[in-house]
């Protein structure tokens, strides 16, 4: 607040002002065209039938059809399990790794470079790689588990109903832990080292230092990472689609995959848009509750 008052005292220099106005106008135009239009079109399509050829208004008909769809509840359930568990595992691991690397011990910078790689690998490759790793015959994971005597014979991880979802979650965690890691590490590095030194002098142990210095400092970022990653995972499509296509027997079919099926298999863009909008409303409500629960003044900033 104090900072913004300071900003008002200064005016933009006139050439900069002009340039700024042009940039702002371009930016607003871009936002309208690329954000507003597609979203409004999606909402519009969700209450129409036969969208592409000759659209007819059907009110909430598409929404009713979608909720009555055989796979709706299964997909919703799968989506919640996938998104919530993957968010927790990837942010948890990311935090653990960030805390370890932030200790500044040897090997930390190597680890930090390595963890960037999974995040940078294209989803197509990740899906191939994990299909190979978890393959029943050639897979390294099965070979290891059988070799150690944990299993008698290899498991088709992506092919059995019990193991498909855990395999998809493990694969996604492998990729997205890096996201939490980097954002949290950047935040950890901005903590003043003198605070820890003083705490050490005063006899605080590692847990007390984490609770009283580290956690308050990274709390906002941590909650934001959980929020952004969580929302994103609810809409996540590529990785599951390429690895399992939603199988076996729809065990990894999430809402986005069902939307894909509605649009490109059942050729009902209206219903796909309705399901997309429904997920959007659920997430929006979830977001409001999340910010209300977690002191929104601190997290929301707006």
């Amino acid at each position: 607040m104090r900072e913004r008052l300071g900003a008002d005292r200064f005016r933009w220099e006139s050439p900069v002002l002009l340039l700024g106005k042009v940039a702002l106008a371009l930016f607003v135009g871009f936002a309208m065209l690329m954000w507003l239009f597609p979203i409004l079109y999606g909402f519009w399509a969700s209450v129409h039938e036969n969208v592409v050829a000759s659209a007819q208004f059907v009110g909430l008909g598409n929404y009713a059809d979608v909720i009555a769809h055989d796979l709706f509840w299964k997909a919703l359930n799968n989506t919640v399990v996938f998104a919530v568990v993957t968010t927790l595992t990837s942010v948890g691991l990311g935090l653990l790794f960030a805390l370890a690397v932030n200790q500044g011990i040897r090997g930390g910078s190597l680890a930090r470079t390595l963890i960037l790689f999974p995040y940078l690998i294209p989803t197509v490759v990740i899906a191939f790689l994990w299909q190979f790793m978890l393959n029943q015959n050639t897979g390294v994971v099965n070979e290891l588990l059988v070799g150690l005597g944990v299993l008698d014979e290899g498991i088709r991880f992506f092919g059995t109903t019990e193991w498909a979802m855990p395999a998809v979650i493990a694969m996604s965690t492998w990729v997205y832990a890096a996201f939490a890691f980097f954002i949290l590490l950047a935040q950890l590095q901005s903590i003043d080292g003198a605070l820890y030194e003083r705490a050490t002098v005063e006899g605080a142990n590692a847990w007390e230092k984490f609770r009283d210095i580290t956690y308050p400092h990274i709390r906002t970022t941590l909650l934001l990472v959980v929020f952004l990653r969580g929302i994103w995972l609810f809409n996540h499509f590529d990785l599951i689609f390429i690895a399992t296509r939603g199988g076996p027997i729809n065990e990894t079919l999430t809402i986005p995959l069902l939307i894909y099926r509605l649009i490109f298999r059942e050729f009902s863009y209206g219903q796909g848009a309705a399901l997309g909008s429904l997920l959007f409303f659920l997430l929006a409500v979830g977001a409001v509750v999340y910010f209300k629960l977690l002191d929104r003044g601190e997290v929301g900033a707006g």
Partner: protein
Amino acid sequence: MIAAVADAVTDAVPQRTLGRVQRTLTYLVILLMCLLTAVPLYVMLLVAFQPTGAVFSGGDLHIIPQTISFENFTELLTETDALTYTYNSIVVTVGVMVLATTIACISGYILTRFEFRGKTAFSRSILLSYMFSGIVLAVPFYILFQSLGLLNSHFALVLGLTALLSPLNIWLMWQYFETVPISLEERAWIEGASRWRAVRDVVLPIARPGIVTAAIFSFSAGWNNFLLAQIVLSDSEMYTLPVGAALLLGRDAGWETAMSVSVLICIPPFLIALFFQRYLMLGINIGESG
């Protein structure tokens, strides 16, 4: 008073043991992190450099390769369009990095430093657009690009990806600029610097880790994207690597081909990681003194 001093002395001993336990745990976590990340990557490299058919012929894959073969790669580069796909991917990725990072910096700065009407609505709408399903958005994108005559162009893909990516990047830069106190800028203004110079010389250098992170996210979106590229690009000469790879692998290719395409796609990201490493290094030594 004396008791307090005595307490401090007895506390100091287990403190050192605790420190050692913590150090060991830290090493274990870092070891785990390296193994989890490196093993799958090693497996990918291992398979890519095996002669075609090796994985199935003997059954067993040796941890240390017995033979190294470039057969898969020469086949890939001479008999397929892999090089064209690579070029297309580079064009798209550079475009997304420049456009998305610039937009994120400008919007992030405006959101931190200026009050304007509709700011709250704007910041909320950024988040709301992030909640909308990408697949549902792909269809209006298609319609939009069709009416603008941009279908099957890399420019359209850059625009679409930037739009999908911007909510996250703007949030990131917003958070970063919030940590730069305005007093630093004010000091530059008092010394006669223009607003732009103050931003360039004071704010941007401090926000550099954030900018690098935004650039990495942009790179990742541009290089990785599969769905939008598949929808926007119809001509196989325009395909980016992920779409091209999926096309190549649709022809029942073996694991060796799959892994060699994978390695090819992974080379630029790995180079980027090594390049950005130096920037991410900044400030890493702070924790070392304690």
